């Protein structure tokens, strides 16, 4: 992927489940190296949208390309060029730190030499060299998340998708996590992240707010705040979400 190429390009992306339209013709682009935030209430369609972008779910309508590959017809190639981390699943608790890294290295087809060198680099950068032999389950949540993020980047993907990666940790660890995100973006990795923390939305280059499956706002945090006359993204979100259909 060359600079200037779009990391993600979605046109009229739609997904229906029976008569329920979870994602309703969303169109947006994400540039290479951008930190792009995806916000929305539970049930607004965030998870469905991500699943389509990473090739787990076929769109009912519309199209999208990720890292230059079509999400429907080129899923295999797409999967090799992206990384994924979610709060629900990250690493295997009953394997050690090192074993997890080696596992994912192997899964993504890295050579043994590469795995070795990148493992050491990763452990050193996170300060986990001494804990390499510890079971992941024994690590505090914040460390697990940082490790999971680094592992998602092990195979140097063009884009990494993060689904609510910082749930439950203290403010300091969350900021450390975001510094890792910034470091990755500085290296040219595009970061697509969803979050419930509105202050983290402010850290993004651009954000997109989903309400009832459609895009209610798309742009830089500063521009959107000015446009809606609010001081924080939290207020922006509340304003937009209040307009949502009152469902249970």
């Amino acid at each position, binding site marked *: 992927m060359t600079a200037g190429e779009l990391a993600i390009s979605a046109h009229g992306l739609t997904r229906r489940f029976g008569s329920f339209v979870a994602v309703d013709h969303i169109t947006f682009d994400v540039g290479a190296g951008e930190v792009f935030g995806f916000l*929305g*209430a*539970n*049930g*607004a369609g965030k998870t469905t949208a991500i699943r389509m972008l990473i090739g787990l779910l076929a769109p009912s309508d519309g199209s999208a390309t990720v890292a230059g590959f079509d999400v429907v017809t080129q899923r295999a190639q797409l999967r090799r060029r992206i990384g994924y981390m979610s709060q629900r699943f990250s690493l295997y608790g009953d394997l050690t730190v090192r074993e997890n890294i080696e596992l994912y290295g192997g899964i993504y087809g890295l050579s043994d030499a590469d795995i070795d060198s990148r493992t050491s680099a990763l452990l050193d950068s996170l300060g986990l060299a001494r804990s390499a032999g510890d079971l992941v389950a024994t690590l*505090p*949540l*914040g460390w697990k998340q940082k490790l999971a993020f680094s592992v998602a980047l092990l195979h140097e993907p063009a884009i990494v998708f993060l689904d609510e990666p910082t*749930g*439950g*940790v*203290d*403010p*300091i*660890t969350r*900021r450390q996590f*975001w*510094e890792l995100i*910034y*470091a990755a*973006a*500085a290296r040219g990795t595009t970061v697509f992240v969803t979050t*419930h923390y*509105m*202050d983290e939305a*402010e*850290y993004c280059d651009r954000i997109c707010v989903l309400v009832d499956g459609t895009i209610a706002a798309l742009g830089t*945090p*500063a521009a959107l705040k000015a446009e809606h006359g609010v001081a*924080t993204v*939290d207020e922006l*979100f*509340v304003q937009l*979400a*209040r307009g*949502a259909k009152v*469902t*249970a």
Partner: protein
Amino acid sequence: MTKRYGAVTALDDISFDVKAGELFGLVGPDGAGKSTLFRILTTLVLPDAGSATVLGFDVAKDLWQIRSRVGYMPGGFSLYPDLSVAENLEFFAAVFGTTVDAGRELIAPVYRQLEPFRDRRADALSGGMKQKLALSCALVHRPEILLLDEPTTGVDAVSRREFWDQLAVLRAAGLTIVVSTPYMDEALRCDRVALILGGRILGIDVPSAMAGRFDHPLFAVHGGDRYGLLQVLRRFPRMHSVYLFGDSLHYADDRASEPAAVVAELTAYLAANGHADARVESIAAGIEDSFIALMGTAA
């Protein structure tokens, strides 16, 4: 109180009190000991050392007296997914020997939003609605105290605000509420707030006073390249701490100098290091800044 699970000390010699009618907040990350604390207060777990009384009853000796007077919401959704809204409410009312009608007045503000969905199965509700139902079930038997363990985690921003609006109404009616939360903005809505980390309480105070505990001059730094700014500021010799904060960076200086002087110094320094567009302003510390400082020293 102290509580250990094997080699892990979940609670380490903590002491605090909550006054009647207070809305008391417990703020801390996962693993800080919040849930263990709630379990002790609801008499589900006994402390290894120390004691606790709830509504004047001892958690070790008077468990049945406490259990009939407490409204409890444990973390996560803890109602019956295959029962309807109405059925869940009726069940919890009956278990406490009362009826939904008796508790109707108390749950009214919350239940108003649930009423249209009274026959819907609980697992078909959205996250925000589920929490409102859980709150109603905790209230329906008219408890004297509410113990809510992270009731708004994983819930969207709008529902969170509505939930806390309900809590404010309940507090105004005189109900004592102890709530834990990871969200700083919610901490601000409490009467008093305790910061808990690693099983220890780092500080208890009124939210505004907590903010006041921040003991260094604080500045907000705005600029386009936040990551770059961060790294540059980290190299500044008089930096005490610097971290991301919403749409800016918060920088704390380790001197007690005049703010204006520091602003000028920083602006010059940043310009010299490739950030001519940076803007520095002196600000008052907020509760999150205090927490970060406290956590930093505790770590």
